[in-house]
């Protein structure tokens, strides 16, 4: 086991990892707990904000698993994020039965719809552990079924992206309907307590933040475990040359389905932690543009590095929060501009810059370091399922000369 752990990073990598995770999990909450007059103290309002960002970071790592390492661009991952969020939201709604505006056992939105009984799919959510199980099971099952059929039919590349986009769009339309029973456009909101602790109390928020930080660290470790294993190598092989991998005897469908389901479950967990910190879950979390933003976080940070998408998520969300306050009319320009410029000039993201070479090397596992840095920027031939493009295989990261 220990032997396996050393495969994750080199020594320097472990050091950096340790420092960062301690900073995130321990240092920040401690700084927040200090009296406000302390110069380095973290203000209270930052805690739920950073918790939100860390959830996005988890989702970005999940995205990297399938895009950076397996070459599947999914434009529907926000669906899994939202489903996890809804499962948590349903638990939170059930836990305040009788305390809503209408003082009824049913959630408020069911009362104003004139429903008299709880629908069958709401049963069981009064138990926290059941809800947690649903956070994992429902998105996981959906991802498994969809992925299995999609990969079996050899749908890939842009087709798969479009189909995943259609999937999340259809789900969003379904959830927007009040008749579906998930609160419609209002979503689930008005949460009061989690496991008995008031969600308004700062101590709860801090605890949620710590839980998110731990979950993030765990997600990172799990992802690292997967990519440094033999499975990870097969994934990279599938990304670079699926046909050849299949001919070598590897059943690519199975590998893809596995990593797809894993990534969906991680996303769902991120969603479940997101909801109590934000206080509302609503179908617009499922919209296709959220998925596209998820992909951009990964692209900006640097795909195929796990750390990169995390950085991308934190950076871009921080910029968005800042810009919507400072430049309300211009922030879309900045965001759109970043999209375009990063795709054009930084195909390997921020981490692809020369300046970060050391960090990348440190982050790479000892085994990886010996490989040439294939950080999936150019798609492998098998990725372009479009018949029109005769592919000049551009392995490696250079943009083909115009």
């Amino acid at each position, binding site marked *: 086991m220990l032997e396996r752990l050393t495969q994750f990073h080199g020594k320097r990598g472990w050091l950096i990892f340790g420092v960062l995770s301690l900073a995130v999990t321990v240092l920040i909450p401690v700084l927040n707990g200090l009296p406000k007059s302390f110069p380095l103290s973290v203000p209270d309002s930052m805690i739920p904000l950073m918790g939100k960002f860390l959830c996005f970071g988890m989702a970005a790592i999940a995205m990297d698993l399938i895009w950076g390492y397996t070459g599947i661009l999914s434009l529907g991952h926000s669906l899994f994020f939202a489903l996890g969020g809804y499962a948590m939201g349903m638990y939170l709604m059930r836990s305040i039965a009788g305390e809503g505006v209408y003082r009824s056992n049913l959630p408020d939105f069911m009362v*104003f719809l004139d429903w008299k009984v709880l629908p069958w799919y709401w049963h069981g959510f009064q138990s926290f552990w059941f809800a947690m199980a649903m956070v994992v099971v429902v998105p996981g099952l959906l991802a498994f079924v969809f992925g299995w059929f999609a990969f079996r039919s050899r749908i890939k590349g842009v087709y798969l992206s479009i189909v995943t986009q259609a999937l999340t769009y259809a789900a969003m339309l379904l959830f927007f309907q009040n008749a579906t029973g998930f609160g419609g456009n*209002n979503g689930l909101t008005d949460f009061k307590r989690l496991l008995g602790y008031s969600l308004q109390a700062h101590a709860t928020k801090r605890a949620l933040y710590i839980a998110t930080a731990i979950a993030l660290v765990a997600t990172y470790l799990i992802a690292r475990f997967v990519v440094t294993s033999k499975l990870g190598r097969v994934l990279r092989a599938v990304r670079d040359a699926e046909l050849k991998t299949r001919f070598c005897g590897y059943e690519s469908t199975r590998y893809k389905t596995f990593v797809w389901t894993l990534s969906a479950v991680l996303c769902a967990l991120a969603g479940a932690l997101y909801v109590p910190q934000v206080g*509302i879950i609503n179908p617009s979390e499922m919209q296709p543009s959220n998925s596209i933003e998820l992909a951009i976080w990964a692209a900006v940070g640097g795909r195929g590095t796990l750390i990169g998408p995390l950085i991308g998520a934190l950076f871009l969300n*921080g910029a968005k*929060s800042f810009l*919507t306050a400072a430049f309300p009319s211009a*922030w879309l320009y*900045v965001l759109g501009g970043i999209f375009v410029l990063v795709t054009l*000039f930084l195909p390997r993201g921020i981490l692809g810059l020369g300046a970060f070479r050391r960090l990348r090397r440190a982050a790479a596992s000892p085994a990886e370091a010996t490989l040439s840095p294939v950080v999936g920027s150019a798609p492998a031939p098998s990725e372009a399922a479009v018949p029109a493009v005769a592919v000049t295989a551009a392995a490696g990261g250079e943009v083909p000369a115009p």
Partner: protein
Amino acid sequence: MDKRTRGLARRALSTGLLLLGASASIVACEKEEAKPAAPAAPAPAATAPAAPAAAPAAPADDKGPIKVGILHSLSGTMAISETSLKDVALMTIEEINDAGGILGRKLEPVVVDPASNWPLFAEKARDLIQNQKVAVTFGCWTSVSRKSVLPVFEELNGLLFYPVQYEGEESSWNVFYTGAAPNQQAIPAVEYLMSKKGGGAKRWVLLGTDYVYPRTTNKILRYFLHSKGVADEDIMEKYTPFGHSDYQTIVADVKKFAAGKRTAVVSTINGDSNVPFYKELGNQGIKATDIPVVAFSVGEEELRGVDTKPLVGQLAAWNYFQSIDNPVNKAFIDKWMAYVKKNNLPGGDKRVTNDPMEATYIGIHMWAQAVAQAHTTNVDAVRQAVGYQHFKGPSGFDITMDAENHHLHKPVYIGEVKADGQFRVVWKTDGPIKAQAWSPFIPDDKGKIANWLYPWACGNCTEAKYK
């Protein structure tokens, strides 16, 4: 582009991004620096502990400008409606400042863009109250946005003025509702359509966008219609999602439903969908004299972006129309057009005033009056002073804020669309009517009281808090 240039471009871009990120974090941290918290004014004994912990309210520093938060979407789907509210809020603040400000201090607006994103609304609200230390916030449009910021305002003891007509079923300690509750808009409209003058409708189509406001309003209306003897088979209820643009089938269904009995349509369709709906009515040859349609979300602003030919004669119910003829309204409109001209707002002289804008205007003035009266911006003190405030509204009446349920008393106007995009008033109440936060027609609401005064001190209860 050759390799060299590309490399240079790449480096330039990355440096730019890093600088942006660095400056963003520095500025963000600077903004986040907690000012030394001032001790809160001792809350009066009758203050309802609706908020679990009354966090320290606005700073007690009496110098310097008073910060006023403006929480309206400037991008995304709601930008269409909410941008005007931001503009009129800024105009009102400028008006108050030009008259000397309040308590000798100027008002400083703090505008943020929650981008039609509900979690972002909550985040921005928290930012405004905790970091920007605003004394009051004017904002929100959709019920979702209000519901997502409500816990924040209640937790941090902030003050929100909400200017849009809504479905009622709410009364919060921290919110003042300057928009209409259903009994100030929907019920009078239906009564008008039932009357001979309104067409004597016997069948009803309740058509709405699928979210809480139409759902709740239609529920109230259904119970109301039952109480007037209308059977369920004479009521058709249909919902379409936001942004729905193809009404061919629905209008055909309405035509079928209307064959044979006088029918009226009550439309709570919101936003963009109104245009294709009215166009389709025109396409299928339905005139206002055949099947009158009364809308609750179509005002002057929505008509601005629309070819009004198919809408002439259709109805809308509001508490204010730009076409109301009285000196206060004229002054209001003149001020607004001057402001538009001075600041070169897009749309120029085609800009209009509408009900939520008037509600924003009244709300800001009432708050300013309350602050002047209470001699402080402290939320608890101002809250007590806002109740019973009077203001001569552009709607032509003396408008009061009900201290009990935190809603405005508002008059009701019913207007017909004219070809120029304005409304002709065809019916109005004699004076302002009190809002009923809890509709007496819904069985679940029986006995519910919203009364924040002693001894009730609650927004949603059936018996007094203090005996």
